[in-house]
């Protein structure tokens, strides 16, 4: 299996508290990898370490086999886009919001086409981002990340602030983008039903440690759990979380 992103022994601490305690995992090219685990497992921190919004104390992240610590963070972040839990749009219009990153890179993009790509009408471009619903804002934030034509899209619980209908629409969009653009997607989620709907592969984190990685089918059939063995500490945590 060709990994677009490979994480090896990642450690990160803040204020004397170790958040990541040696995480190793991989995201295959062109697939949707879901990072799951209970609250405080370090899922969002892991995602931030991948595009160097935070610098790990130890370990390495590889993009196409190349260590990201040796890359210019600005170049890395243009290749590895990110969508956050809340949209945080800026600019006076939706078009400004979408083109923020490309303009910084000295390029241009078709905001109308990007809006259509995320299921919004091109006429949204002239609207004030703050007048949109949170679901629409999240679509705009996905369009904003796509404007840079990233090879990987990191998504940190992008549906957690949305209602059920908006959540389903974003899930469909994630599937479409992956299929249409052959985009490698790493999605952090705490909702197992969502993981079951969108994932190709599942990485489980618990208390800052990687507990394993499986195909979606293995993960939900329980093969992953039995493979680790019931007596392992990870196995215990997984059962507690799954309840």
């Amino acid at each position, binding site marked *: 299996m060709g990994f677009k992103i490979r994480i090896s022994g990642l450690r990160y601490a803040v204020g004397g508290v170790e958040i990541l305690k040696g995480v190793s995992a991989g995201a295959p090219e062109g697939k949707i990898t879901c990072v799951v685990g209970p609250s405080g497992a370090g899922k969002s921190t892991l995602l931030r370490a991948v595009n160097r919004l935070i610098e790990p104390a130890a370990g390495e992240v590889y993009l196409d086999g190349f260590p990201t610590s040796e890359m210019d963070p*600005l170049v890395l972040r243009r290749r590895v886009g990110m969508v*956050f839990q809340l949209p945080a749009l*800026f600019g006076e219009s939706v078009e400004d919001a979408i083109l923020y990153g490309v303009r910084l890179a000295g390029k241009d993009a078709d905001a109308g086409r990007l809006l259509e790509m995320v299921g919004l009408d091109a006429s949204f471009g002239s609207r004030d981002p703050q007048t949109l619903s949170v679901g629409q804002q999240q679509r705009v934030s996905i369009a904003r990340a796509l404007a840079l034509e990233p090879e990987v899209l990191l998504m940190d619980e992008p549906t957690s602030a949305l209602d059920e209908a908006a959540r389903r629409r974003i899930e469909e969009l994630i599937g479409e983008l992956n299929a249409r653009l052959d985009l490698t997607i790493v999605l952090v989620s705490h909702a197992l039903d969502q993981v079951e709907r969108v994932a190709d592969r599942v990485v489980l984190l618990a208390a800052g440690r990687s507990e394993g990685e499986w195909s979606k089918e293995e993960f939900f059939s329980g093969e992953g759990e039995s493979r680790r063995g019931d007596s392992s500490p990870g196995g215990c945590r997984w059962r507690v979380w799954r309840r």
Partner: protein
Amino acid sequence: MEGLETVGSALLTLGLVAVAVALSLYQKLDLEKDIGVAVVRSFVQLAAVGYAINYIFGLESLSAVVLLLAGMVGFAAWTSARRARGVPRALPVAAGAIGVAAVATLGVLLLLQVVPPTARYLIPLGGMVIGNSMNTASLTLARVRDDVAEQRLKVEAALALGATSRQAVSPILKTALRSAMIPLIDSTKTTGIIFLPPGRW
């Protein structure tokens, strides 16, 4: 009699401070300790600086004036940096900003021969420039720190879109600078109407 009048004035002033402390307690502003420390410090500092300035006036040495002004810049920077706890490298940033403001302003005044290069002019003038710069630096640093914390999501989103740190905080910095400059601009605007320069009237 004159000594008694001075003590009376000091007590009256402390009475006003007590009113401020009472208001802080009533409004639960948690400023009582700050006010108390500020009052004690101002008494001690004024007495100490009075002796120092008297000594320097007597020396008539420009290098002693420069040394005193440098000390004032250092103290102002330390005060600003304390106000901006949590801001990385706040002390050198504040020292740089206040130092540049002092050197530029006094330098221009000296070059244009607006003031003579003597302690009697440079120390009070330098004090005013350094004091104003310190206030602006404190307000700017504290505002930047608070706004970055409040708008962390926007800053992170900008960074994730390939913005440099400077570009990501640029809107916050602009707002902070604008706010911090308001008191200075307003006092300049109202000079001659509200703010009257000290002198013989």
